[in-house]
């Protein structure tokens, strides 16, 4: 949950990008990192595992204004997506304030998407969180690929509660900031 730093007068919020391996979580984060103003962001930290990286950085959006005299700093994380790296995923979810599920739109990754979503619910439940009660948005990435499943199909399989969803082509930046803005708004709202 959000941490308040009275010294710097900042509220720190943690947003985790979750989803199956190679679905575009890292691409989202790298795109955001490269677009936010250098003087408002921290370092991009990469925690390398055997085959996948966990990325992390924090930034202070300049256009967000103040909340009761405090600025809001977002800490963005990715998780390793491959099924067998669950220990890392669970650890990263601890204290989460908002979640972005980055689904891989390719038909062939449907099972991996569904498994990852189940895994997200399960891991959050172990911390006592309910995904239906925390800021959560879904991004359907790789919409430009010819084997992308129709959005209705993805919605039916992955988004039973019909939270906000965004189509994206993260390698080109399409939909990346729409997704981030949406989850940020929900996080800010939850703070209030």
């Amino acid at each position, binding site marked *: 949950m959000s941490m308040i730093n009275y010294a710097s007068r900042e509220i720190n919020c943690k947003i985790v990008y979750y989803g199956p391996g190679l679905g575009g979580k890292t691409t989202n984060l790298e795109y955001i990192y490269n677009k936010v103003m250098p003087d408002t962001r921290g370092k991009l930290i990469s925690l390398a595992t055997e085959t996948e990286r966990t990325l992390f950085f924090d930034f202070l959006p300049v256009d967000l204004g103040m909340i009761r005299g405090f600025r809001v700093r977002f800490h963005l994380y990715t998780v390793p997506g491959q*099924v067998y790296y669950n220990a890392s995923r669970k650890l990263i979810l601890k204290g989460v304030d908002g979640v972005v599920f980055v689904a891989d739109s390719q038909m062939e990754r449907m*099972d991996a998407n569904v498994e990852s979503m*189940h895994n997200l619910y399960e891991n959050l439940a172990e911390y006592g969180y309910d995904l239906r009660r925390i800021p959560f948005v879904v991004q359907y990435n790789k919409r430009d690929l010819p084997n992308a499943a129709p959005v209705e*199909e993805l919605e039916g399989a992955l988004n039973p509660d019909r939270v906000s969803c965004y189509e994206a082509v993260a390698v080109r930046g399409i939909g990346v900031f729409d997704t981030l803005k949406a989850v940020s708004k929900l996080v800010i709202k939850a703070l209030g």
Partner: protein
Amino acid sequence: MNVTCPRCRTVFRVDPAKVPAGGVRARCAICGNPFQVGLAAPAPAMEPATVAAPAPAAAPPPIVEAPPALAPTAARPADASALPAAAPPPAPPPAPAGAARPAFAQTDPDARARRLARALVSDLVTYQPDLQGRGLREGRLKELFWQEIKKSWQEYVRQVGLEKAQKTPYFRDALNEILAKGQKVF
């Protein structure tokens, strides 16, 4: 062509070129229901989507419950209906009307095991597509993926338990369908 799953009514786009003249058996990627695409045998008996009898409130709609078949866009030999009789999971109760949505984190154990197997094998292919191509070309899939398969199997056993892992065909089926692209290699 558009194909509609008779149970959950999801509409899929299917490349007609991939459907053999005699039709093909497919598995709905959403609800797992097996059904016929194109000509050939009449569709197998399946629960209607709107069953009046109420299911238990906590019963999740099945994500997958049928013996392994294929995703709607994949091709499969016409004799695919002759699926192995090895321990097909019992058909779960039909989803109550209007509840055709996945109940996350509360799934039927067989559906969960099957989905997990497919996700694990899908990861293998996603991370090493070149190796898959080479393995298929050279007939060395088993050899080239041995370590990765072992690692995935261990994770599978850890999550579903040794008994279910050994008594059900899900992992092997996933290897054949996804890694071996429908060939019976494993």
